[in-house]
């Protein structure tokens, strides 16, 4: 058996163990608070993965809260005003999100770099302010959203039910995004992100790819929004502020951009850190910010580069030791 095959088997085994662990952990640790944290990590990971996908196409999108809000508000409105259930509302929301992302994508197709980032922030603000200023959408008022209806006889009103739903979604989205990245299309996206001129010279339709990627990212974010709304039960415009977009971006940057594990690890970090910090909210924020800054200072490539960094650190020390001893 060759080395590659052994590596593949080892890796599949690790994934299998990891999946078993994630499937059984809510049954072992029976604390509702713990379940809540797991769900929040899952939601953050989904948002992070979709934002990373968009960024990997070369577009620094900083307004994920907009699509998150469209999903959440789409769900409550379709439930309240139209009387749809969760499962029939989701495809409708998908269509709406895709249409909005399509429009945004084509409108901004010639903008790149920092101007694009600013436009995406403005877009998120427009969505948020539209919600606040439109009485039909509820304004400042919060909406109540019931949990998803049971499907295939599985009730999703409990935390564990929602957790499994999100876990399945995370696995599917993570797998597909990872495969996409490693596929020829992923290579085309990388070429486009790093060198648009070259990409166009070899026939890559950069506008179309950008728009499609934005649409896919938006769809995942809005689906996450529907899950968030049905899990939390109460949504208002404050959940979709600029800060939400920034935190989503933070999960990727802290986790690392190099692969799909970045946003997942970043999501766990960003979600858990405020929970374990002691003290009042204000002190917590200061400590939170400090830790985030220090992490970025030492691990420029994010938390996923930690093993590599440690390895070079210890190897460096091991290499230095004999020299210093023999020197004496």
């Amino acid at each position, binding site marked *: 058996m060759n080395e590659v095959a052994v590596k593949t088997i080892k890796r599949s085994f690790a994934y299998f163990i990891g999946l078993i662990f994630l499937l059984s952990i809510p049954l072992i640790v029976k604390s509702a608070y713990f379940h809540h944290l797991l769900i929040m990590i899952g939601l953050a990971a989904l948002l992070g993965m979709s934002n990373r996908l968009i960024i990997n196409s070369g577009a620094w999108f900083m307004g994920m809260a907009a699509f998150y809000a469209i999903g959440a508000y789409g769900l409550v409105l379709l439930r309240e005003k139209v009387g749809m259930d969760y499962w029939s509302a989701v495809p409708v929301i998908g269509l709406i999100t895709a249409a909005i992302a399509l429009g945004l994508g084509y409108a901004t197709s010639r903008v790149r770099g920092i101007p694009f980032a600013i436009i995406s922030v403005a877009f998120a603000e427009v969505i948020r302010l539209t919600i606040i200023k439109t009485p039909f959408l509820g304004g400042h008022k919060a909406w109540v959203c019931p949990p998803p209806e049971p499907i295939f006889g599985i009730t999703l009103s409990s935390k564990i039910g929602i957790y499994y739903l999100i876990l399945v979604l995370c696995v599917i989205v993570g797998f*597909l995004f990872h*495969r*996409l990245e490693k*596929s*020829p*299309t992923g*290579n*085309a996206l*990388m*070429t486009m992100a*790093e*060198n648009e*001129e*070259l*990409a*166009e*010279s*070899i*026939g*890559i*339709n*950069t*506008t179309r790819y950008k728009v499609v990627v934005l649409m896919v990212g938006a769809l995942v974010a809005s689906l996450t929004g529907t899950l968030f709304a049905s899990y939390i039960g109460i949504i208002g415009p404050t959940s979709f502020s600029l800060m939400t977009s920034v935190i989503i971006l933070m999960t990727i940057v802290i986790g690392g951009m190099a692969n799909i594990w970045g946003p997942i690890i970043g999501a766990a970090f960003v979600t858990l850190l405020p929970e374990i910090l002691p003290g009042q909210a204000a002190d917590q924020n200061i400590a939170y910010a400090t830790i985030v800054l220090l992490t970025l200072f030492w691990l420029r490539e994010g938390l996923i580069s930690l093993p590599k960094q440690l390895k070079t650190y210890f190897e460096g020390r091991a290499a230095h030791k004999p020299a210093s001893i023999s020197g004496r």
Partner: protein
Amino acid sequence: MLEVRKLTKRFGGLTAVNNLSFEVERGLIVGLIGPNGAGKTTVFNLLSGYHKPSEGDIIFNKKKISGMKPNKIASRGLVRTFQLVNLVKNGTAISNLLAGYHLQRRAGILATIVKTNKARSEEQELWDKAIEILKEMKLDKRWNQSVSSLPHGNQKALGMAIALAAKPTMILLDEPTAGMNATERASVIKAIHRTRETGVTVMLVEHDLKMVMGVCDRVIVMNFGHKISEGTPEEVSKNEEVIKAYLGYDETNRSGKTVYN
């Protein structure tokens, strides 16, 4: 194959290309030369869609391509390279080269994500092709190296290989040998001849006149956005206008005996 009619490009008050017309026949190697600032690279940018012409038409394979986007023009078989090294710097030699096969892939995005057998074998085929090309370039041992660590000559040659991977029927080479040493230059010239033998029409912009005269079947000379001469290398090198443009005007020697090189 390629026909340029009264092409004009203005940047504000500056007319970079002025009323330029020429034709390129299938299977030839055509050189586009001229002093610095003559508008050669602008012509290439117009031909490949990176600039939109102010006036005039570009006809490629009997279809008007002026005004099309670069990727559309590339998909019609007119592919360019760049004057400066233009690669994905963080990418490896092979990932850069594989990107060049974009237009040749038939498998859909979904097929490549779920890795159907068809998509897998197609990718394997392209991979083998790419390794073959790297072998020819003597880069097969460094296929997995980041391109920024390769020597300049290799990077430049890789740029041409990427363009050829897109299977063009006509290739535009923007100073293919700029900044190369003699051995690298010789191998590029060989590559250009080989490209023509596979049926690809070549048009190149070049500063190195020795190379142009040795390689090209026809030469178009530009100065200040105008075409000042066109013909075989011998004809062009005897043209007084061309000599003037390159060597300046010599009052004491008007007999036209000046021969460059």
